């Protein structure tokens, strides 16, 4: 990390009424194999909101998300979580943060050697002094939240894709996190299951006091769960704001994404290719 990033501004003074930023990201830059995936991202995530990062496949959404809990380190820039700059922290020093910030992985990332019950119990056994009876109660509560109360004794390999994601979500909720990071929560699911996952994200938002960050290329999901939207393309946010502003935006690529016009374009190509 360069010692002094010009983009790294000190945290701004608290505005009066607005909810304070939980994450403040400045000048986030990350490259792989000579290609800059993220090129100086600046954004804030406010306490209690659901922030959606929309982008096409390979646009660097996952990379951005993984900076927020320190799974990856940026090449330059900083991520400040709740007043602490986490960019220079050692793995071990990130653990307190990670107990407050849970992540739902794209494929669920359930431990496939354990039952669903043991998966959800895993963070509880690691981090709380709860007795097995208390853990069992908590696991059932979390599985109830994601509408999977009967799945506890099953192995992850016996679950469908949607169930696996819900079980993984229950595991992410186990420690009652303040922040939930979702990595492509609907990828690989059919539209009905996707909608169910989307509703679940909304329910969690309504009933639990959490800040949520969702990265996705699923427009339906983004529209249904997001309070604010950022559109990531070529390492920059081409748009950042609420939905009303997104619909008014003159950015052509975002316009295409929001309107689904890409389908028509492809048809045009196909028809114009015909003599």
């Amino acid at each position, binding site marked *: 990390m360069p010692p002094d990033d010009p983009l790294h501004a000190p945290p701004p003074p608290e505005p009066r009424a607005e909810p304070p930023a939980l994450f403040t990201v400045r000048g986030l830059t990350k490259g792989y194999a000579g290609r800059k995936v993220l090129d100086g991202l600046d954004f804030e995530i406010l306490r209690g909101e659901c922030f959606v990062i929309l982008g096409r496949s390979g646009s660097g959404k996952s990379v951005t998300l993984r900076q927020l809990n320190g799974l990856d380190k940026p090449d330059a820039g900083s991520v400040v979580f709740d007043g602490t700059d986490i960019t220079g922290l050692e793995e071990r020093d990130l653990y307190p943060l990670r107990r407050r910030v849970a992540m739902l*992985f794209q494929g669920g990332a359930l431990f496939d050697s354990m039952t669903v019950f043991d998966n959800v119990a895993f963070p509880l056994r690691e981090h709380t002094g709860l007795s097995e009876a208390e853990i069992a109660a908590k696991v059932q509560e979390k599985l109830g939240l994601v509408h999977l109360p009967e799945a506890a004794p099953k192995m992850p390999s016996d679950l469908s894709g949607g169930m696996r994601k819900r079980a993984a979500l229950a595991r992410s909720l186990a420690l009652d996190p303040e922040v939930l990071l979702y990595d492509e929560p609907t990828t690989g699911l059919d539209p009905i299951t996707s909608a169910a996952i989307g509703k679940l994200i909304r329910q969690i938002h309504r009933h639990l006091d959490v800040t949520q960050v969702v990265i996705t290329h699923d427009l339906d999901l983004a529209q249904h769960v997001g309070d604010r939207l950022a559109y990531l393309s070529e390492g920059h946010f081409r748009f950042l704001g609420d939905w009303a502003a997104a619909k008014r935006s003159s950015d052509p690529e975002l316009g295409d994404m929001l309107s689904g016009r890409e389908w028509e374009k492809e048809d045009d190509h196909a028809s114009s290719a015909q003599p």
Partner: protein
Amino acid sequence: MRARNFVTRTGEIALLSGRAFAAMAARPLETRLWFAQMEQLGVRSLGVAGIATTFTGMVLALQTAYSLPSLGVKYYIGSVVAKSLVRELGPVLTALIVGGRIGSGMTAEIGTMTVTEQIDAMRSMAVDPVKKLVAPKLAAVLVMLPALTVIGCGLGILGGLLVAVFQLHVQASVYLNNIVQNLTLADVVSCVGKSFVFAYIIAIIGCYNGLHTEGGADGVGRATTDTVVTLAITIMISDYFLTRLFILVVS
């Protein structure tokens, strides 16, 4: 992975070793995981390691008797078998066979967890994969490989005894006496010492390659192959230097 700079890899392996040994000692001790790994890695390797060393002992007895028939060498079969096994073949063969079996298994297991983001999931839950996965395997192999080696040497000597008695018509007491007179404590120490070092090599390389697996199923396949090849080479090369070291220490 092959293209990874050799120096970088060596450095990372050294770092992983440090973290794994520290995690082994750190509280709370994950003894339940250790015993599970000992069972899986050690006890289940007993059959294959035992068969290999038993037949090696039998072959050694035969070769000794038939390649040097004129020298009355029959009476030295015991010490030839025991010395070769205890000083060289026991530790090396056991490490190669057990290493191939459990080193590749470790890489496949951890590698699959890496490519399916289970390792990242563990990190995201503030749990150290080195403590949870690497340290128990390292502890298990450090205990079980020397044990398997000693058992293997015993079985090999027994195999040699059977061949000596039933095929070469050497008295069992001659065979055993010859061993007792010639086998030294230094031989046994070198045997166990070598297998400790091999155990460390197997566990660290197996886990390191697993944690650095990239890509999907083919990545796991490549990493597993890499582990088997690297282990075989590293064990053979380090055996030479360990032998020199022990000779230096003893003399």
